[in-house]
């Protein structure tokens, strides 16, 4: 699964921007939170793309925008190569079937008043697929795929543990046989041992069904384990993007370096040098000019505070947004 091979991107976002308006409804004092500010991203067929960054970096917003849960302020989204910009609503809905989503919180992402079977069958019902019997059969089959038993069909979500609920969420995404699933922090609410179960399940699905994943997470080691390619975001901007092994062998961007070095290592014998970042994340309401990272960057010069760096390709598939490269 090398990234050099040219493949059709299943999902592509170009120059995605998502601004939220805050402040008074009265004209003055209008502010924009620039949650995502001009990000290019493309995910190929059968690929797992890991998107990492700290709280507030815009990774979830990017995922939700690609999913169509919120409207992008600017930018193009292509699904299976087709630009959805000028499409009719019904066409978009049809195309959107190919993108599904798994959410972070397994406790609130399932309707508490629906039985598991109904949750799964409803997805098919919305898209008017199959008869009632066929839907039930499909639901039972998909339950088997994610490791649920048929007896769970008539149970309510509250009767399940967190890990099992996440399986249900995954089944709901899978039942429409999508080309890509956007996973927004799917394991961060789970215990370590359960987390491994879900990660293994995702990898299995990719291998068996060739589904692509956009895997959004803050846990570097999990992302490294599962992804083919990784994008690092900071304050609404993509900082670095590279195939996983390349990124870890040759980390270029100072932010990625700091992020990687901060990840604790479960091996007590390897004490590595840590780059400790100063201070906190600046407010996205008032992002720093120039390179958004310059306020915390150990290598920042005056230029960084003036000019905003573009993404430069420094090796095949390895892109960095830093003036010092």
């Amino acid at each position, binding site marked *: 699964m090398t990234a050099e091979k040219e493949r059709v991107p299943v999902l592509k976002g170009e120059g995605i921007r998502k601004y939220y308006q805050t402040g008074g409804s009265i004209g003055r004092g209008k502010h924009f939170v620039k949650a995502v500010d001009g990000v290019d991203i493309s995910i190929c067929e059968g690929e797992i793309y890991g998107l990492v960054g700290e709280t507030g970096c815009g990774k979830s917003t990017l995922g939700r925008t690609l999913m169509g849960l919120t409207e992008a302020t600017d930018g193009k989204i292509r699904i299976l190569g087709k630009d959805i910009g000028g499409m009719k609503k019904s066409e978009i809905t049809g195309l959107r079937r190919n993108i599904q989503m798994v959410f972070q919180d397994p406790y609130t992402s399932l309707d508490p008043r629906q039985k598991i079977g109904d949750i799964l069958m409803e997805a098919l019902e919305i898209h008017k697929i199959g008869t009632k019997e066929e839907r039930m059969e499909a639901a039972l089959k998909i339950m088997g795929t994610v490791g649920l038993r048929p007896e769970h069909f008539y149970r309510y979500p509250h009767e399940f543990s967190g890990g099992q609920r996440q399986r249900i969420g995954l089944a709901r995404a899978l039942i429409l046989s999508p080309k890509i699933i956007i996973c927004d922090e799917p394991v961060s609410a789970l215990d370590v*041992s359960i987390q491994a179960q879900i990660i293994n399940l995702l*990898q299995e699905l990719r291998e068996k069904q060739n589904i692509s994943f956009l895997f959004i997470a803050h846990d*570097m*080691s999990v992302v490294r*384990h599962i992804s083919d390619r990784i994008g690092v975001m900071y304050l609404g901007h993509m900082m670095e993007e590279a195939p996983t092994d390349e990124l870890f062998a040759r980390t270029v961007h100072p932010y990625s370096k700091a*992020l990687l070095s901060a*990840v604790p290592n479960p091996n007590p014998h390897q004490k590595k040098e840590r780059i400790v970042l100063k201070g*906190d994340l600046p407010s996205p309401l008032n992002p720093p000019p120039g390179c958004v990272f310059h306020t915390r960057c150990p290598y920042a010069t005056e230029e960084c505070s003036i000019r905003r760096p573009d993404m430069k390709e420094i090796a095949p598939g390895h892109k960095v947004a830093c003036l010092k490269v």
Partner: protein
Amino acid sequence: MQEKILEVDGLCTQFRTERGLLKAIDGVSFDVYRGEMLGIVGESGCGKSVTSQSILRLYDEKRLVKYSGEIRFEGKNLFDIPMKQMRQIRGEKISMVFQDALSSLNPVFTVGNQIVESLRIHRKLSKKEAEEKAVKMLELVGIPDPRRRFYQYPFELSGGMRQRVMIAVALACSPRLLIADEPTTALDVTIQAQIMDLIVDMNRRMDMGVMLITHDLAVVAETCSRVIVMYLGQIVEEGSVDDIFDRPAHPYTKGLIEAVPKMDGDRSRRLHQIDGTVPLLSQIPSGCRFAPRCPYASERCRKEMPELKTIGATQKVRCHCVTEEQGKEA
């Protein structure tokens, strides 16, 4: 080894519920030494937080909870002393840092006020002295512009700052033991790194024992010298960091370590997974509590509860499958 500052002996914590007593902690014994960092790891529901709060007797003893066993601190059993004395120990000799700083700091008092309170209670300082000391504490925990921060409210600070304030509150009276209950769980990795560095630094500077309670094995590997692994209210394994990470003896410990993806691990391999879920406290299996999820479980494991036995100089494990020799081999 250094001097023991805290000895926990056969601690049992039972919660009174509608369906009778629920044993959250079942016979936990361990020591904390001066100046060491002891890690207590386990998944949710393993009783690690209950252990820490039992040490300070924070649960309502009249209605909610029943303790047994002994906790010896400075020659006294903490369960024997009256509440008044217990209060003098809390915050002065043994301090605690909680997971969620936003909800753990009182929202209607300023940051400075909350540090001052601790100093005034235990050190009987005048208002002015306490304020001076509080500002110094804020500075010590790495808060820039401490004089201004002193007058701010918790919600005005960032997550990392709030955690630093909590640590300042806890360390204000230079305690002998700091219990840090998941201090970095809610924080981002870069902030987590800052806070862990701070805790390690304070541990060295103030020569106090630190009990670090966490679900994150990697954090423990990086900071602690000794580790206790808990499962369903019991200690399943105890040892030095090297023992636990180089030669884990209990299948649960092994499973936990292998379930975490490594930064330098082989990506093509599947993660090791522990099947099933942690059972409810009300449905504790008979015999070894891990048996239903253990790949090596035998008939004996399902019937008979294993004892915590010593298998090395510093290592103890609760498993039928491990004999003393195996422990040494592994």
